[in-house]
């Protein structure tokens, strides 16, 4: 098992967060957040990966076979659902922001400050 997936996961997180911090466009920001979130899928799947393991479906296969961890896969699925929900919500908010300010800059029409 190499360290590569972990390195990539951390890289995705850092790149995604950099994008969120510097973004000047809400749609772009939503995508950056999705990139950062995808790092957690990779991390979870890497943790459950077993070299030479089969998919954890045991019909027609002896239960003794080595398989990758199904629990982290369930976690990843949940995580994907969460991510899609958040993206959907943020995009819906972006539409409203655009309707109001004719701009997608998160700094546009800043109401609250101080």
């Amino acid at each position, binding site marked *: 098992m190499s360290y590569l997936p972990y390195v990539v996961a951390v890289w995705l997180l850092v790149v995604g967060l950099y994008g969120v*911090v510097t973004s000047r466009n809400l749609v772009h920001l939503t995508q950056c957040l999705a990139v950062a979130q995808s790092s957690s899928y990779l991390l979870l799947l890497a943790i459950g990966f077993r070299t030479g393991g089969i998919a954890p479906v045991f019909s027609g296969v002896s239960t003794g076979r080595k398989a990758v961890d199904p629990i982290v896969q369930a976690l990843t699925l949940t995580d994907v659902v969460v991510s899609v929900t958040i993206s959907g919500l943020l995009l*819906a908010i972006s539409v409203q922001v655009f309707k109001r300010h004719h701009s997608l800059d998160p700094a546009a029409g800043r109401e*609250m400050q101080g």
Partner: protein
Amino acid sequence: MHALVPLPVIVPLAAAVVIAGFGKFVHSRLVDLGAILVALADAVITVMLLLASLGHSLTYWYGGWQPVHGLTIGIAFVVQPFGAALAVLASLGTLATLIFSYRYFEEVGALFHMLVLVFLGAMCGFAMTGDLFNLFVFFELMSVTAFALTAYRSDEAAPLQGAVNFTVVNTVAAILILFGMGLLYGRTDALNMAAIGRQLAHVGADPLLVMAFALITCGYLVKAAVVPFHFWLADAYAAAPAPAAVLFAAVMSDLGLYAVAEIYWTIFDGPFGQHANLIRGVLLTLGMLTAMLGAVMSVLQRKLKRLLAFATISHIGLFLLGIGLLDNVGLAGAIVYLCADGLVKGGLFLGAGVLAYRLGSGDEFDLRGRGSGLPVLGTTMALGGLALATLPPFGTFVGKGLIEDAAAEAGAWWLPWTLLFAEVLTGGAVLRATGRIFLGLGAAADPELSEPQDDEDEDDEPENPPGRSATLMTFPVVLLVVGGLLVGFIPHVADRAADAAVRFVARPTLLDHTAAQSPHLSTAAYLFGAGACAGALAFAFLSLTRIRRVSAARDRGAEWLRLPVSVLHGLHSGHVGDYVTWLVVGVTSVGAACLLGMTHVVP
């Protein structure tokens, strides 16, 4: 009794589904009443669970998947008094919210009720689950509903900005939590918190565990809005409709701290036991910064809801100080304080909602003297301000007194003074606003308070929806504030909280379950409580007085403070990129402090 355990989650979720599906087709009064009944049922069930859990904790395995030979696969709910008390708080808050918003959102039908009920189910689940991933799922469910509730008035600017900041910052926090959880799962192959705690009980602190601790703790501290993770809260709570802000301020923030406490004592107390001093130092530092910054910022606001949002941040810092002492009595104090304070703050947020609805503004200066027709509301809000300043012998005072006694035990002499500072300022700010609005005291403008903003979208509440009387709206305000005060008179509340705290701390082992010694409040605690109230009243007097010599001295003082005040205003920029930067800085600092402090000792 065990059969009741899943109900506080299932009942509101099922009701939410029904309302989402059929709410459009029935009369909206029916939806209002149905939702109120569900919240009432949840309140009854959670109170029963709380009473049952006072004797011994209740464990419920979903689908009967109990652990076999020490291997835990199933998902468990573990009901112990601290969590159950928070579930009760959530149910009562929801009940007040729904009564308040009776006939509130005419135009959009039942969506608000659906979101509030999902939120209730998620909060109850969060407070009772014993599974690390389940905790995360309820966290997300709670967050997503809260994002949607914040953006509820999506045709206005402030709610949109608040919702974007809230969503992005909390989602980044969720990613951090997931990272930390992944590391823990990779290490222990378990997700049940007690099982993880048992496996790690006898290992030392290694870098992987320290990173997992820093990531998960900081993630939940974002939800609790501890400095420097707090920026999103003021924007979100000030922009959310008042009935939703009640739930956020009274329960959601507290749940973040609950998760921090639960994860520390269930999982990390074993491996990090010998570094308790370092963790205590980190948590107390964060708590102190939060308490003081929140208090100062709340004084600087003219918008009532934003003032209360910063008061919420400040008081979260106070609870973190109680928890961060890592001691039974401190935790007991935090439990009592958090429940009483949650109710009072909820009442104050609703009070701000009544004002916005009746008088069309949430601004202290716009409202000056215009509240004189609402004496009951004014009295209640003044009482709420005194409760924030821990008026003895009521609920908030009992909790604070316990924290102070624990601090004296631990030799943290500065802690009671920090509490005093935060309480004087937050209580004083509420009293100042109350005096100005209901009695017409004070000047009509103050340049030091945050800028008045574009007035066109100020009134975030609907304009005169039909058929609501002020009495029906004021009722839940009184209910919450008086309820918060009465927490102090629950028979043996201090003893019970102490017992709950001992069991919370000793949960993974359950062997060295020692009986809590009966705590009693010292004379010093009474002095500090009375001092805080006197200080808050003095602060309100000083801000409102028009006696020339006093007010001239006050204005000279304000001159000196102009620069630091403008720096503070500038820090809260309202820009989400800045907030995420602060979050990254905070997580990195906490992680670095823990890594440096804990791992060099390990051979």
